[in-house]
């Protein structure tokens, strides 16, 4: 594959987002990416495209238009019914080579990272993983991709000057959802790709869906997180009660997961989930950098800790220095009272 030259770079125009979907539903991050995508497309004076591989109807395209996309590029066929690297990579590479976008965004999910890594080598361009801030230098048409590195201890802004498209994966729940404008229209471009099942080496033999314990902290509006300070698995009752009073779900620091007090599905942070709830209550969490990177985008953060020096206070909207065994029941009581009063006033 020849390296893109200075001249050929100029032919690349447009900002694209990959729509990852399963069972007819797009992942949240696919739509979240349309927020920075729209912003950059407007700044650069180009169209915002989405790429949909393996959806027979136009329902996802209609959704994408409502969230701000101008064009949907669709490749469909039986080989695309479940995500596999090879067929999906071939489809995306085909679209990139034909339509030449200058910027291409994917969610930093298992599928997004698997696919993006393969595409970047295949089309011979750079890829920046797990970005948390995106910007664009309009004059030079350069995409400025900022990401945490070294476990969140540093931030780095990365450029891909000589190759196109400029590719990034972006963490879920970091970018806000775009406003939905039902009825907003766009163009659909359908492409064909000759690809037979017999040509694909990888077969999915079985799929076991995660037994849903009913928690999906990544999507929750309110999270009450237990840290090691909670002391024991039994004491999590108290955290659950507070979560119930607020209408939220229970999260956990890695220490709590490692101690076996709660399952990994609840873990917030670098090696757990990145969350962006309206309210995050951290109870007995010290606030290690690996925890902070997963929750510091919450709208409001309340921290409860008996150590006034705990780093969690540096990100908290309100900090309460005190013994959590006193503070949590009192907070539960006051929140319940406030809710009951609000209900009575309606």
């Amino acid at each position, binding site marked *: 594959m020849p390296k893109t030259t200075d001249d050929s770079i100029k032919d690349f125009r447009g900002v694209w987002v990959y729509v990852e979907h399963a069972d007819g539903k797009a992942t949240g991050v696919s739509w979240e990416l349309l927020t920075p995508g729209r912003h950059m497309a407007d700044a650069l004076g180009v169209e915002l495209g989405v790429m949909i591989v393996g959806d027979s109807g136009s329902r996802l395209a209609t959704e994408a238009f409502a969230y701000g996309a101008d064009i949907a590029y669709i490749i469909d066929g039986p080989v695309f019914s479940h995500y596999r*690297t090879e067929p999906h990579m071939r489809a995306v590479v085909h679209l990139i080579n034909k339509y030449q976008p200058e910027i291409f965004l994917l969610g930093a999910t298992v599928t997004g990272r698997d696919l993006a890594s393969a595409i970047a080598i295949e089309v011979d361009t750079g890829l920046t993983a797990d970005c948390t801030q995106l910007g664009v230098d309009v004059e030079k048409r350069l995409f*400025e991709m900022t990401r945490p590195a070294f476990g969140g201890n540093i931030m*780095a802004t990365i450029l891909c000057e000589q190759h196109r498209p400029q590719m990034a994966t972006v963490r879920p729940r970091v970018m806000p959802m775009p406003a939905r404008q039902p009825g907003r229209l766009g163009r659909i471009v359908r492409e064909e790709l000759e690809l037979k099942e017999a040509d694909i080496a990888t077969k999915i033999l079985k*799929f076991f869906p995660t037994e849903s314990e009913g928690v999906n902290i990544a999507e929750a509006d309110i999270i009450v997180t237990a840290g090691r300070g909670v002391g024991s698995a039994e004491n999590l009752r108290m955290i659950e009660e507070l979560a119930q009073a607020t209408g939220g779900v229970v999260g956990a620091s890695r220490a709590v997961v490692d101690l076996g007090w709660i399952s990994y599905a609840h873990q917030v942070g670098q090696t757990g989930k990145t969350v962006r709830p309206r309210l995050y209550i951290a109870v007995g969490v010290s606030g290690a950098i690996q925890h902070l990177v997963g929750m510091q985008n919450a709208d409001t953060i309340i921290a409860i800790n008996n150590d006034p020096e705990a780093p969690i206070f540096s990100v908290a909207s309100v900090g*309460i220095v005190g013994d959590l065994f006193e503070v949590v029941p009192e907070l539960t009581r006051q929140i319940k009272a406030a809710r009951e009063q609000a209900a009575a006033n309606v």
Partner: protein
Amino acid sequence: MHVVVCVKQVPDTTQVRVDPVTNTLIREGIPTVVNPFDYYALECALSIKARFGATVTLISMGPPDAVKSLKKCLAYGADRAVLLTDRAFAGSDTWATSYALSAAVRRLSQDEPVDIVICGKQTIDGDTAQTGPGIARHLGWQQVTYSTGVEHVDPDARTITAERKLERGKEIVRTTLPVVVTVVEDAPEIRYASLPGIITSLRYTPETWSVQQVDVELANLGLKGSPTKVKRIFAPPQRSGGEVVSVEKAGLVDAVKSAVDVLHTQGVL
């Protein structure tokens, strides 16, 4: 069968900081460790060796000091270790790193054809999860990422069956050799190093290869061979902390009330 495990020596990231004045990394005195995810990759390889029979070769790209990490990994039961070390590799991004490692795999294949390359799912310093798939693409091999383990290898049919961990659940995939597998932390933990293994590793000197030993184009290596460039680094923006109230000073009810008041004004309740 020949299985190659990619190992990276990384700084203990919990201790890495940015100098607030110069905005450069403070590297002095930071201890290095074997990338924790690479132990899962190594265990995966050793378990293939135990069940199906294989030669296990370790490769690492890094400074001469990374020999230390290779020797550490050898003690668990690998057969051979190679360090790719050359100034020409310095500053490589994931494109150039996976290019260099793929060249090393090609070189190893001349001695005994490589069937499986196993990497940790990502490193703790770069965190990209791009190098494993990059090696697969540079070699034109299949890839199985985010694996919790290899269930079966069939050397006659030239296939491998492995489990992958996704957000929505788990899947079992079968694909053809040669293949690159990346392994997650849900996979089995590394076994104990045996005493003979430790003694062998102490006596063993890993081979070191420069660009001379591998078939690479210099233009594809290091900073100049890397499509991505770091424009600047900086300390993470601190979200400014708000009000902090103390139960001791304000009393329990009032301290908690000040938090509930904020929830009211922000419309959370």
